[in-house]
């Protein structure tokens, strides 16, 4: 029964022809570009043998690197969610001199080669740099500490949030705010109950993109991080170190762990996303 129902719906005529063909092409491309390399990664990791895998996976240095990468990315993405939202709000809602300039500058972290960003950040936040020298007297060190990692991750993740949220804010008409005000709502209540909820799905997507980018970020981080094992060494760097030592299996194991954790987190967020989207209907 179920099978026949499924096959008949599969065959149903559609206004959009070519499902079979486009699905075939998509799956082939996806396999070649994504699935096969990932499978190879698993096979490589498995070649190490269970005991060795366990040893690499639970070694304190691996755990410290993973913790820094994921917690750092989570923290940076959270900061970006807040400030990216505010920045998008300012860009959409206010006319001020230089608005276009700021708007364009938001994309710079996208455009800049990550190494350039890393060198620039390191120079500014180093104890003798512009910002670093201001903070040094208070005993705050940014460059070459985990804090430096955060700064780099925040820098590269910001555009994702802004660019996701901006169009949604632009599209939301001012009249819902006027309606709320006429119904007697305070400005704060209006923002939190009327303006922000429709933005949540886009904000969540921006958060995920910023997070994903931050987890995988390498170039800009290693210049400012100092890369002290157990303290400011990120997981991608650890993978590169293992590769340079020809420890391919070890690199593959760490890579596989990153892959699984990332996948689980993104899946979780997508589930939340699906729930909020259903509420908004097809928007």
């Amino acid at each position: 029964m179920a099978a026949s129902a499924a096959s008949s719906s599969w065959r149903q005529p559609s206004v959009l022809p070519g499902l079979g063909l486009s699905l075939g092409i998509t799956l082939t491309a996806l396999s070649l570009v994504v699935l096969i390399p990932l499978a190879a990664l698993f096979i490589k990791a498995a070649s190490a043998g269970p005991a060795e895998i366990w040893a690499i996976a639970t070694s304190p240095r691996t755990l410290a690197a993973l913790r820094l990468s994921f917690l750092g990315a989570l923290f940076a993405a959270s900061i970006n969610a807040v400030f990216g939202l505010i920045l998008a709000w300012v860009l959409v809602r206010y006319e001020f001199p230089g608005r276009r300039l700021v708007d364009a500058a938001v994309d710079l972290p996208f455009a800049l080669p990550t190494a350039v960003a890393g060198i620039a950040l390191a120079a500014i936040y180093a104890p003798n740099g512009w910002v670093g020298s201001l903070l040094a007297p208070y005993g705050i060190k940014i460059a070459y500490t985990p804090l430096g990692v955060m700064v780099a991750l925040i820098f590269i993740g910001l555009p994702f949030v802004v660019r996701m949220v901006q169009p949604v804010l632009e599209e939301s008409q001012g009249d819902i705010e006027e309606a709320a005000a006429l119904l007697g709502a305070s400005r704060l209540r209006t923002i939190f109950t009327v303006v922000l909820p429709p933005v949540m799905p886009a904000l969540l997507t921006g958060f995920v993109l910023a997070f994903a980018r931050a987890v995988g970020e390498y170039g800009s981080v290693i210049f400012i991080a100092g890369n002290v094992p157990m303290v400011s060494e990120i997981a991608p760097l650890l993978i590169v170190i293992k590769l340079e030592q020809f420890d391919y299996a070890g690199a593959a194991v760490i890579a596989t762990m990153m892959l699984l954790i990332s996948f689980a987190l993104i899946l979780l967020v997508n589930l939340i996303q699906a729930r909020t989207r259903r509420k908004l209907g097809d928007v």
Partner: protein
Amino acid sequence: MSVAVTIEAIDKRFLAFQALRNVSLDIQPGELVALLGPSGSGKTTLLRLIAGLEQADAGRVLFGDDDTRDLSLRDRRIGFVFQHYALFKTMTVAENIAFGLRSRPRAERPDGAEITRRVKALLELVQLPDLERRYPSQLSGGQRQRVALARALAIEPQVLLLDEPFGALDAKIRKDLRAWLRDLHSRTGHTTVFVTHDQEEALELADRVAILHEGKLEQVGTPDDVYDHPATPFVCEFLGEANRLPVKIVGSQAFLGDRPVLGGLTQNQSGPAALYVRPHHLKFVDETPLSIPGVVEQLRRTGALRRAEIAVAGLTKRLDLDLTSQVAPAIGERVRVKITHATAFATA
């Protein structure tokens, strides 16, 4: 509960563009007034000024004896229905309607059970029971419209303002909602101003119609007033179809060329004038004084009536005439028509 609204000499400009010029309007408590005008004539701007969403450059708006400039948006207690409804799409229908009550300061806020009860009563009033849990995206246009109205009514407004309440709906639903709104108004009795560009809607619904043209109030009056005695050529043409005859007025008679076509004019306005005649104010006659000879060139159906188009020597446009009986002349037939009612406006 309902309050009189007094609009005093309002001017409003957007940069160099003058959107409203010296608009004054008195609205009685409980009255239903239509703001009628073509697109861009300033209807929405005037409505937003009454609501306090826009500031006037000159003049003021009073609710009763209170100058609205001294009132916050909340204290004005305005029920405003936006042209595109402006429902909160992340809230259910019930949450939308309850929003105003929940936004009240704690001391004045009804408790949860009372809010639920009122939401139910309002949904009943707008004839949408059992839709509490739906989201706006799951409603039809007409249902959204009524939810927006229920939300506006929830705060027990002193004044109800509706911007093109039926603008986005199709013709059949518009007609149904018209009768329903009229009925709702007679039951709730709010002072109501609604904006429309549809003259039929304005004439049918409103106690009084205010006609706007390029930011100026052209005429205010009951539907019969403005329809039968338009104050300006614009009002005359905007409210319905009219034939325009260039005539010369001498004494109490109007002449088309050298032929008298209308007598008994009371206004003392000798000189060139434009005579506006509605299609149903023309009728076929036998040879009589003050009749106009012509030739039937077209017969058409316009809804319930049939219309004849008559070519008249000396007129570039054919005269439109609504047939009142089933007997129709044939195309090409020579006929005589007589004006039964007309409005004359002096031309320079």
